[in-house]
């Protein structure tokens, strides 16, 4: 048993020495390889451990030079979640929230995503907030975001939120608000997602009154109102 263990130790030491020598060789080539770019470097000849180490070295150097995009690629290939978090923080610091969210998603940093989502919600960056909470599958915060979007009249974002949540009631409410605000395309989208045929017919009638035949046609098609569809086709086809 002892001999077996010793052999194992010797093998491990040999492997480590080999990897170290490969790494030192690699480090001397680092500037050239960095210029060549992560996409152009072929590391398929190395074993998984060495490849991971090399990718970490490359990623570290890219990070040091501020080439965050390449650093992300390197650390993704190396599977280094800690470093991805660090890059996410860097992106957050420089105000590239979208990239920061992507990094936190990759690193599975739920806490940071939650914090960033809340911050975005306060700052009125609804798109980023929705992305954070959708990634976390946090329905409660998504509902809050949707309500905030409704309050501020950000209809598109509200539609996105309630579509994700599958909340027909809220979508109908939103559609009514859009209709009141004369945002007919958004109203159609909301009623269609809510699958509310009555509201779609109502919208069709409003559009017909105002001579907006294309939206009216869409609304009647979605509500499957064949009579009104035929009426438009027969009387207003040329228009």
């Amino acid at each position, binding site marked *: 048993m*002892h001999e077996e*263990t*010793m052999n*194992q*130790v*010797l093998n491990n*030491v040999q492997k480590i020495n080999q990897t170290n020598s490969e790494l030192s060789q690699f480090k001397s080539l680092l500037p050239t390889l960095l210029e060549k770019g992560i*996409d152009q470097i072929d590391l398929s000849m190395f074993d998984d451990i060495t490849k991971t180490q090399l990718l970490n070295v490359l990623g570290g150097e890219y990070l040091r030079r501020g080439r965050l995009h390449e650093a992300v*690629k390197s650390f*993704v*290939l190396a*599977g280094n*979640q800690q470093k*991805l978090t660090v890059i996410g923080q860097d992106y957050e610091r420089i105000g590239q929230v979208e990239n920061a969210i992507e990094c936190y*998603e*990759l*690193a*599975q940093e739920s806490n940071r995503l939650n914090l960033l989502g809340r911050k975005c919600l306060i700052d009125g960056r609804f798109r980023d907030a929705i992305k954070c909470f959708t990634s976390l599958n946090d329905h409660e915060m998504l509902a809050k975001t949707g309500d905030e979007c409704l309050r501020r009249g950000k209809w598109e974002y509200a539609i996105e939120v309630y579509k994700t949540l599958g909340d027909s009631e809220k979508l109908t409410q939103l559609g009514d608000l859009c209709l009141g605000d004369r945002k007919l395309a958004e109203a159609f989208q909301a009623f269609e997602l809510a699958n509310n045929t009555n509201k779609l017919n109502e919208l069709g009638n409003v559009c017909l009154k105002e001579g907006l035949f294309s939206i009216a046609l869409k609304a009647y098609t979605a509500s499957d109102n064949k009579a009104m569809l035929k009426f438009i086709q027969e009387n207003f086809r040329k228009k």
Partner: protein
Amino acid sequence: MDIEKIKKINEMSKSLRTHHFAIDSQDATSDAQKIFDDIIPEKTTETGTPMPSPSTHSPSESQPINIPLIEKKFQILLDQNVKSFKDDLRNLQDTVEFLQQELSKMHQRVSKLQQPVKIVQQDPVKEEQVTQVVQEQPVEHEKEETTSHPRSGNLTSSDVSIEKFFYYGNSK
């Protein structure tokens, strides 16, 4: 720590020193202890079931599967492969174009070389004429070469009489 384990660590530290993996006995002991902690739990227990060890497990075993990371990795690798494939294809296209050009050049050369041979085969009388013409042409060239002179032109010495330039009469 039981006595058996201490014995094993001591033996291992001795071996480490004999193989020059440790500088002194203290280093050897600490290294042996580390190795023992890392490797021994991997071994099976008395009952034959494998013993779990958090330090020896791969990240995929100890951590939950990170699907977004795997997807992204796959996407990057796919992009890289597509890019290299496109580059290869472009190189191949360039090579084919170059070869086409070379081939057309060679065709042209071959057709040029074949032209006089055709004349010979078609009409032997014409060939004589051609050869005569070819023979006559150098003579004309020679004539031209003898008559025309770059410095003096086509003038003879009688055209430019010295008397036209110098007056031999009495001075007034």
